[in-house]
């Protein structure tokens, strides 16, 4: 997903190297191991709900696509990104926080931020 922009865009503008790509890819696939631990074990999601937590990454995937194709959609994508990370999960977040006493929203935002960092660093 965030590798998308690098691969897809003009390689003269983005100097990539495989070691950093390997690192990013490792983190990307670590999400698939880490999400069940975080959301199922700690927050008590069901397996299906845990899968839906990946939606945040989907927005990121969309935004990186828009950035890489230089379309106007990137504005829309960033809007989606922000609404997914902060707005739409708000009520559920409150419930989970009351039940489990953990800052769920902050957690999603941290994942988004981590991914965005990689998007920017590449």
């Amino acid at each position, binding site marked *: *997903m*965030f*590798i*998308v*922009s690098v*691969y*897809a*865009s*003009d390689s003269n503008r983005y100097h990539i*190297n*495989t*070691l950093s790509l390997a690192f990013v890819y490792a983190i*990307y*696939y670590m999400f*698939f*191991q880490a*999400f*069940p631990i975080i959301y*199922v074990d700690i927050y008590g999601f*069901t*397996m*299906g*709900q*845990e*899968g*839906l937590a*990946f*939606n945040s*990454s*989907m927005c990121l*995937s*969309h935004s*990186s*696509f828009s950035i*890489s*194709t230089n379309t106007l959609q990137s504005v829309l994508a960033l809007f989606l990104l922000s609404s997914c990370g902060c707005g739409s999960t708000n009520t559920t977040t409150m419930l989970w926080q009351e039940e489990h006493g953990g800052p769920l929203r902050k957690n999603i935002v941290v994942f988004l931020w981590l991914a965005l960092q990689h998007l920017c660093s590449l």
Partner: protein
Amino acid sequence: MQVDLEYEDNDTYSFTSLELADTKNLVTFQHEDTGNPHNWSHRYRAFVVFIGILTTLNSVLGSSLPSGYGNVIGEHFGVTGAALVLPISLWLCGYIVGPLVFGPLSERYGRQLVMWGSSAGFTVFNIAINFSPNFVSFVIFRLIMGVFGSSAISVTGGIFADLYDEPIPRGRAMAVFMTATGYGAILAPVATGYLGTYGWRWPTWFQLIVCGASWIPLVFLPETYAPTILLRRARKIRKDAPGSNIMAPIELEKSGLRELVVVVLARPMRMLFTEWIVLFSCL
């Protein structure tokens, strides 16, 4: 010295002959030749891009498939702890090995054959994985599926390079393609999270359903690799006019098993270690 010949038959083929030592005529593409993938219509090229994306989606969907239902697999096979990482990580090990084999093969035998062959292998092991008796076989089947699945990822990039010669449409196609790889890996845990509650086999059946559905457009995949198109053209001309010494450029390369292993399959590794620019851009 270049001599232009016109093919006498009612065929539209025309070719340029390069004078070789023993006067062999080489088939090449003419200017604005409709056989050349660069000159295909936009709609048809978009269709080929769609096929490439669909097969890639298949493969990437599988890579993150066990994420949502790891505990179900663990309970069924009686495995706990760090071993549950293996279904995903061994698939990714297959991603390492596969491109080294399928990339060069697609540049020797054409994209179509390699895509069909690897997708067939992928489908067969997709069925086999549902009948795996223990965890070891499950994991090994997933490794093999990863090897076959990597073919779509590595060959599709080549197909896009065959189709588009301008950088902008090619970059756009690559952007769509790489987004599909991102979406696929994220879609799988959503689906399998819900399907996993119905048993450990359902997520892999789901993958088989997606795989089977993507075979429908996949059978219409045309050959896009120019040297292979020329090879088919040369064979057709030879068949129509026996005795003519028409050759495709790819036929001038030596063929044989030894040649395949030493030259074709070793090419990426040799380039990696002898070409400095490849080595440094790969670091």
